[in-house]
């Protein structure tokens, strides 16, 4: 690949890493909606590698650890950060938060707080693209923990049976909360397993985002021809499961080793090896820091959603809307029939 590409990948990996660090900062500063925030630090290569191989018109769903994937697909970090802060200017008007960020314009069919919950949705998207012949591909991103959810196996079968343009991407960061993958799954032959469902499948080391990209590219070509595929990206979850988790269930030696698999450091080294100076790299770092500082500030400054918005978006506009409970109470005591309200 060209130097621009190397740089672009570095910038994208760095944007995710930096964004997640700012999410941590927003949390510390009390600006997040809750603490169920799952950082993808250490897993940027899956997001960038696959994300860069996708095309406009493709769609995707993510698991709860999906910030990086959405950023890789063009998200505005300010609106993301605002959503994580539960603000009105966030992608979901402060109703969804970190675990439910979505944007139809960018093909993000939604992050999901149910492990495996978004996997079946790409089967449906694939069905739409097949029937409507849009040429689009639907990609499901999920963690290694979702490999133990039955719905995933039903989904693989349907895509293979109907030859849908679907790619399943398992971001294997070795852990589901405090449970290491080998304590959650008796066998680790996920690639072979996917093949027995009629998918083409492969796995890749997440250290090199460009390798992840090339592998995703190969699979996506087959997917566009109607051969669904499965890709497993192996990486390591650098930090705790969510903001409150200090990972007491794994020892420092393991964590230190895991953090050696750093796709960002790897890509920076590649830039240096291909002739860029440390100063050039630092320049990118400075730019990205500015971008993400701005996103953080945007979230802090953003307005909270007005309380009465809680009744909106339950049903489409024009449909009967939810009646506030307090209104019902008043009606019950003031003979609505007499007052002609019922």
């Amino acid at each position: 690949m060209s130097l621009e590409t190397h740089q672009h990948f570095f910038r994208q990996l760095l944007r995710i890493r930096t964004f997640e660090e700012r999410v941590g900062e927003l949390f510390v500063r009390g600006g997040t909606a809750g603490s169920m925030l799952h950082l993808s630090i250490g897993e940027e290569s899956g997001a960038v590698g696959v994300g860069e191989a996708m095309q406009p018109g493709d769609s995707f769903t993510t698991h709860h650890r999906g910030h990086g994937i959405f950023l890789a697909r063009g998200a505005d970090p300010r609106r993301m950060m605002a959503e994580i802060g539960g603000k009105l200017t966030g992608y979901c008007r402060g109703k969804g938060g970190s675990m439910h960020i979505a944007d139809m314009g960018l093909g993000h069919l939604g992050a999901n707080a149910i492990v495996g919950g978004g996997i079946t949705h790409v089967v449906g998207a694939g069905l739409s693209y097949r029937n409507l012949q849009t040429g689009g591909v639907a990609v499901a991103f999920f963690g290694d923990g979702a490999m133990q959810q039955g719905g995933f196996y039903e989904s693989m079968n349907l895509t293979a049976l109907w030859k849908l343009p679907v790619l399943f991407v398992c971001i294997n960061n070795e852990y589901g909360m405090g449970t290491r993958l080998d304590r959650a799954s008796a066998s680790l032959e996920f690639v072979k397993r996917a093949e027995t469902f009629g998918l083409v499948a492969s796995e890749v080391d997440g250290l090199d985002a460009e390798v992840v990209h090339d592998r995703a590219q190969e699979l996506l070509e087959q997917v566009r021809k109607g051969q669904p595929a499965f890709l497993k990206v192996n990486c390591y979850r650098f930090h705790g499961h969510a903001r409150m988790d200090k990972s007491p269930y794994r020892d420092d030696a393991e964590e230190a080793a895991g953090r050696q698999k750093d796709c960002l450091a790897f890509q920076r080294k590649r830039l240096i090896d291909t002739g860029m100076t440390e100063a050039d790299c630092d320049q990118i770092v400075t730019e990205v820091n500015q971008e993400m500082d701005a996103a953080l500030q945007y979230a802090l400054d953003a307005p909270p959603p007005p309380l009465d918005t809680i009744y909106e978006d339950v049903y489409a506009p024009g449909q009967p809307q939810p009646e506030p409970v307090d209104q019902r109470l008043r009606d019950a005591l003031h003979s609505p029939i007499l007052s002609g309200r019922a």
Partner: protein
Amino acid sequence: METTYREALRLALQESMQADPSIILMGEEVGRYGGAYGVSKGLLEEFGEARVIDTPISEEAIVGTAVGAAMTGLRPVAELMYVDFVTLSMDQVVNQAAKIRYMFGGQIGVPMILRSQGGTGRSGAAQHSQSLEAWFLHTPGLHVAMPATVTDAYVLLKHALTLPDPVVFLEHKSLYVQKGELTPDQAPPWGKAQVLRSGTDFTLVTYSRMVHRALEAAEQLAAAGISTEVIDLRTLHPLDMETVNASVSRTGRALIVTEDCLTGGVSAELAARITEGSFDFLEEPVLRLAGEDIPIPVAAELEAASVPSTERIVKAGHLLLRR
């Protein structure tokens, strides 16, 4: 024209699919088999495999696939052969379909229909005879339709296929052979209850299969000099309490008849709303004649004893009028 509940449902699907190419049917045995209860017979032949899709036995993925398809340009009708099987897809119905518009801040809706059938009458036993509509009534974000008549089977399904949000459309296994006149032009609009019989002594509120038993009972009560107003709710969401309370405020007495089991059932919400809306007019507490608080047994006589019968509705009417 006279037809059956089954035919009326098929006609609604057929006409809607002809008019709207984005509508697809998917579920177990909906295609070649024509549907376990024959509702979709002939549709595969007319619309082809791309739009009438036989699925494996994968309830979670069936509903989840419908959700994803509904978000990307199709209008899926996902069929669960028995509503009892929704227990395998509740995440997709409740956490996904019903909440996506909200969680995503109104960006998009999930225009899909979950078609299924429930209720007793075929000795299907505990896992093939349930009436689970109360779960959906309790799930914000869903519409719930439960047609009792040939005409409503047709008009409610056709309207459901135009809504921007998910609809749980529940048929009754004992009604498929029900005959009746198909008179769409005389049907009330979506979300409005229908007064099927006017009366002055008490208001009987019901829906789905129990509507027919209620009408039989009203006939017998009339012979005994008791005048019953029978209201068919037609949809549980929207829930037309205006019509119900307007009636109860006149009659001063209400009996709710449902097939689903009593405790925590639809009858509870109806009783609460009637009491809230018509308290000053109530001569008696709102009565609930519902399914027993038991699983459904297989033996035909036991099964029949598990849900309200015409006779017991008549008895309840006498009880309510104290004569």
